[in-house]
């Protein structure tokens, strides 16, 4: 993954729990790098290790860490680094989600080493829609849930998020049902 993902974890931990806690996590993760360059590709193993060690150090489940990271990604990282693109993504949550598939196809052109996930939208109804998440990476569904929650907060549109199917239960992708409250 690009350094910006690891930097997001660093910022999330540092802001929420202090620099010393981040240093403890960084040292326990045995990172050889001191700084993450945002546009540099790093081994995915670094990101997974950071998430696991963070969950141990903070006494939270990995899923909780990933969900927090998802929210943080939307509310802080994306706003800071891709603010213009985020604003261009849609005027409201519904429009943003409908644009998400093309948005990620564009991202894949900008970051060729990223292998970003694919999204599809189906069951488009007045109050609900289905968001399909396809990824070569395992175990990041709670990160996606956090992303949706972050978007919901960002647009100030409360939603319910239900996981309908997952690779852990035999499907080839995850499907979230998102309904406006």
């Amino acid at each position, binding site marked *: 993954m690009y350094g910006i993902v690891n930097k997001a974890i660093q910022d999330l931990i540092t802001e929420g729990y202090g620099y010393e806690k981040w240093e403890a996590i960084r040292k326990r993760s045995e990172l050889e790098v*001191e700084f993450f360059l945002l*546009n*540099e590709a790093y081994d995915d193993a670094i990101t997974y290790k950071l998430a696991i060690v963070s969950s141990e150090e903070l006494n939270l489940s990995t899923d909780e860490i990933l969900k927090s990271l998802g929210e943080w990604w939307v509310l802080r990282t994306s706003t800071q680094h891709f603010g213009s693109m985020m604003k261009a993504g849609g005027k409201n949550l519904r429009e943003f989600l409908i644009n998400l*598939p093309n948005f990620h*196809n564009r991202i*894949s*052109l900008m970051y060729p080493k990223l292998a970003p996930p694919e999204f*599809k939208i189906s069951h488009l109804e007045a109050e609900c829609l289905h968001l399909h998440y396809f990824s070569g990476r395992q175990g990041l569904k709670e990160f996606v849930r956090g992303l949706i929650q972050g978007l919901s907060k960002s647009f100030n549109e409360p939603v319910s998020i239900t996981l309908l199917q997952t690779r852990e239960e035999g499907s080839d992708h995850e499907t979230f049902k998102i309904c406006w409250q």
Partner: protein
Amino acid sequence: MSNGQSLPHLSPDQISQLFPAYIIVDTNLKIVSHGAIYQNLFGSIIGKNFGELFNVLRPKIEDVTYDELIAHQGMLLILQEKSHQIRIRGQFLSSGNNGNLIYCGSVWMNTIEEFESSPLSISSFALHDPLIEMLQILKGQEIITEDIKSLLRRISEQKELIEARGKKYRDLLENLYDSVISFDEESNIIECNKALCTLTGYSETELLTMTGKDITHPEDWEIARESTKNFNETAILPIFNCVV
């Protein structure tokens, strides 16, 4: 959008000028017309099957059929031509009443080096296409990034060196038989060694909450203070007379 008047018909050459990487396929996905860049890459590709020449990189389509391409109208489709792995970004649209689909797209690259090593030339890009200029701008940014990376490497190396020297200093301090103590400007104790703990009977934790005055004989305090006057920063002094 138009004001209700019909739009001008464009010839294949004109379409090629606007979209040098365009393709038109029929309902069997046979190519019936194409842009100029394919002539350089393949020779004529009229009549060839779309799937023979192109992969769809994104979105993931297991089986590229006419119906799938129809279903993906309005989506950004990233193609890769198979002979030189050149990526093309664009979208399919229905073209006329015969069921043909037109793919309007442009070549996409991420680095100017990718362009230089490709068989394409500047004329492979439409005049309105800003890619080549953007790649040049990116190249400038890349050079700056390399400089920053080099700087970061040096900072990391220097930090490791400082940490190693700090450890060496600390080891030396701890193993000295003489007591050594460091004060800040307000004469607060900020560092001491084991010998000082032994000498004073205080633990290191206790000493770090004390001042120089607390552990100096009252008669020696002025002498000690005088001796630190010339230090602008933290003073490191051997202990000469302590209250024990």
